[in-house]
């Protein structure tokens, strides 16, 4: 139990360090938010007045203190750009991004796990080499480039999948309780929208997953190879266990653990990378929101996005850590 508390405390601490660094960085990079907010031909007096209203005339540590105080009260502040509570903005932008990340993660796991296992079992064969080649190519391709190619060729030239957007034009009035269209459409029993959502997600999710899958296959392979070398595998084989049983019952179950930790981190990284595909596929989402916030010097919104992505990252890691802990034989012995 103490382990769980320790992990959570550590996560919260990391979050505040992350917040502080982001806050500092946004001060250095973004330009003058009051100047942007004042609009064209504002003049010096109005800009100075706005700077004061926005609290920008305070020392940075005071600004940070006020900001953290608000966050502790569950208030992410008001966007200088959208004039809306940032929390409300993010509640709208998160579901489309998370939906994209979930699907990309699913693709990642569905490919990485079996491919990792198989390349480990048949390590240093022609099959292993071939997969490695494909994986290297996948890891080397920039996400935005792959996204454009997929869009232009698969959607544009072949006309197989939609070019851009979240739903087809005919479904433009669809809305649901959660904002996750896959979930909402199922809850409403609307199979048409479900399929439409999936079709719009397919290319962006695939483009997003590619790099992560390449890493996933390699990581899974490495941890599986280590398992294959262990004594219990030799023992199991000596006792006449079938190769299928050895691979899935023994090696996969044990070797998946280190890979799991990486997948947990990948989830957070993916959320940070959605911006690359959201821009190209014209999808709403947190990445797109973040770009606009950065280009408009909307500091609180930028920090809030980083905060929320950080929270998702830490939660994903926490869940994985707990999972690994729960599965670990040491813990079973102890408990």
């Amino acid at each position, binding site marked *: 139990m103490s382990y769980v508390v320790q992990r959570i405390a550590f996560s919260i601490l990391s979050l505040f360090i992350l917040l502080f660094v982001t806050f500092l960085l946004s001060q250095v990079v973004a*330009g003058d938010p009051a100047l942007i907010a004042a609009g064209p031909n504002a003049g010096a007096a109005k800009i100075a007045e706005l700077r004061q209203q926005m609290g920008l005339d305070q020392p940075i540590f005071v600004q940070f203190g006020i900001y953290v105080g608000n966050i502790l009260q569950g208030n992410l502040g008001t966007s200088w750009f*959208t004039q809306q509570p940032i929390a409300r903005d993010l509640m709208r932008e998160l579901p489309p991004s998370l939906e994209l990340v979930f699907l990309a993660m699913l693709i990642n796991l569905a490919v990485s796990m079996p491919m990792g296992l198989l390349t480990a079992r048949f390590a240093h064969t022609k099959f292993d080499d071939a997969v490695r080649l494909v994986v290297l190519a996948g890891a080397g391709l920039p996400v935005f480039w792959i996204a454009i190619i997929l869009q232009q060729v698969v959607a*544009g030239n072949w006309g197989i999948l939609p070019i851009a957007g*979240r739903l087809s034009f005919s479904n433009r009035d669809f809305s649901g309780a959660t904002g996750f269209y896959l979930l909402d459409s199922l809850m409403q029993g609307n199979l048409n929208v479900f399929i439409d959502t999936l079709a719009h997600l397919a290319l962006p999710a695939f483009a997003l997953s590619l790099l992560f899958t390449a890493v996933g296959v390699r990581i899974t392979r490495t941890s599986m190879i280590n398992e294959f070398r262990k004594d219990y595998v030799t023992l199991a084989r000596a006792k006449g266990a079938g190769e299928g049983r050895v691979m899935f019952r023994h090696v996969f179950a044990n070797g998946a653990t280190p890979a799991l930790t990486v997948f947990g981190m990948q989830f957070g990284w993916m959320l940070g990378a959605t911006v690359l595909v959201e821009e190209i596929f*014209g999808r*709403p989402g947190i990445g797109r929101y973040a770009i606009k916030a*950065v280009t408009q010097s909307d500091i609180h919104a930028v920090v809030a996005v980083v905060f929320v992505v950080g929270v998702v990252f830490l939660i994903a890691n926490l869940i994985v850590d707990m999972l690994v802990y729960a599965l670990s034989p040491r813990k079973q012995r102890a408990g």
Partner: protein
Amino acid sequence: MRSFRTYVSLIPLALAGVLLPGAAFAQPSGVLVIAENETPENLDPANATNSTVNQLLIGAYDTLVQFTAGETQVSPRIATAWEISEDGLAYTFTLREDVTFHDGTPLTAEDVKFTLDRLQAASANVLNDMGPFAGAEVVDEKTVVLRLSEPFGPFISALSRIYIVNKALVEPHMGEDNARQFLAVNGAGSGPYQITGYSPTEAVTLRAFPDYWGGWDGSHVEEVVFRYVSEPSTQLSLLQRGEVHIAPDLTVEDKLALMDTPGFKVDIGAAATPLFFAFNTAGEGPTSDPEFRRMLAMTFDRELHLEQVLMGFGNLPDGPLPVGWLGHEPGTEAEFDLEAARALVDENGWAGTNLLVRYLPAIQEEQRAVEQLQSNLSQIGINLQAEGMTWPAQAATVTSIETTSDINMLYNFPSFPDPHAVLNTTFNSALSGANGGYNWSQYSNPEVDELLNAAATSSDPEERAELYRQVQRLVGEDHVVITVSNPGSVVAMAENVSGYVYNAAHHQTFNYMDISLD
């Protein structure tokens, strides 16, 4: 510009699902989809200075006076007539009797006053261009007086961006933020269209308001959808697939190609958004020397730029003010003459000078103009270093003279077609970069300031024209900027879009209220 092979255009027409061919006096029908690369900040009329906001509000709200697309003269809208007092300090407007907001409330003088009071309380950006506006007074239900603290020539023009909000609807939401949060996501207007869907990172939907006070003569669309698509290649694919009808943000090459592609057409609007190289006139660097600036002013080939970079989409500039505008003075800027510039460099021993230009590399035209200048300057022994930035970063560098680079690139986006909006913004020392304005040359010439202020406070067009001519001559002699180009507003669209007309007073907007789909 139109393609003559019209038969093929039937295909996107069918795809667009248009119900009926447009006939006069038809009910609004069909859905017009417009692609847009920048997402809107919000729906608040206080921010109508921003084109992404303005393009949504232009059909959803009404104004006292308006610039209709294709016109450079202001015309009545909610106001049927106005009178200006002898001293130029009071403008009395008579309002139409029959205007109602979307919730059925009649629009009265109270709404006009409330709108302006609220904008003042909220320090709204749209008021930046309203000069010495002091306040509004209600005389009776249909008469309102707007008062100024000193005369302001372009006042009527500036009112074309003041969208009248429904007092009864907005007042309960004033709260501490002057209804900013409310108006950011809600409509409160009386225009022909009503905002019915707002997902700012995805799409915004407007629907024709059936009881619009102006009626629905002619052909119009029932629904307008702005779809936010940042990638030019994605916009192109969507246009080709028939999923959007208007695509303004394609690359120049793609627009050129679409001109000869059946099913599409390309409109070139005579925009008035000059692009400048602004020389730092106030710093310690070489550009503070007028003679050095005279040399620089001769090193940019505008004709080549128009031909090779803009592919002919635009007008050759002749000085900072667009040709044909009130008070335009020809021949004030130095012409391209690299040999004369080289002679000056040799004479003064300037060879080997290092200069820094800051610009926005995300904008294709700026990137290429910088490369062009770099190449010309290198031929005469001057090394131009280029630093690409984002807009907020570049804008922050000019807020003090010390951090202002030798040269900055920027566009001027006049908020109404009046010389004040270009010349005052670019050359008045009150609006220098250090004072938070767009005079990024940090140019300060008391004589020019005086002329600009005199022109702003005069309401006599002839007198104003003469003052502006003098301003252009002085600025030309001081070699403050190079006017690089007057790029056209080039918009690609499906062949079946009819009625689109570029509006110079509302740059980067669309007159969707006049558009129909054949």
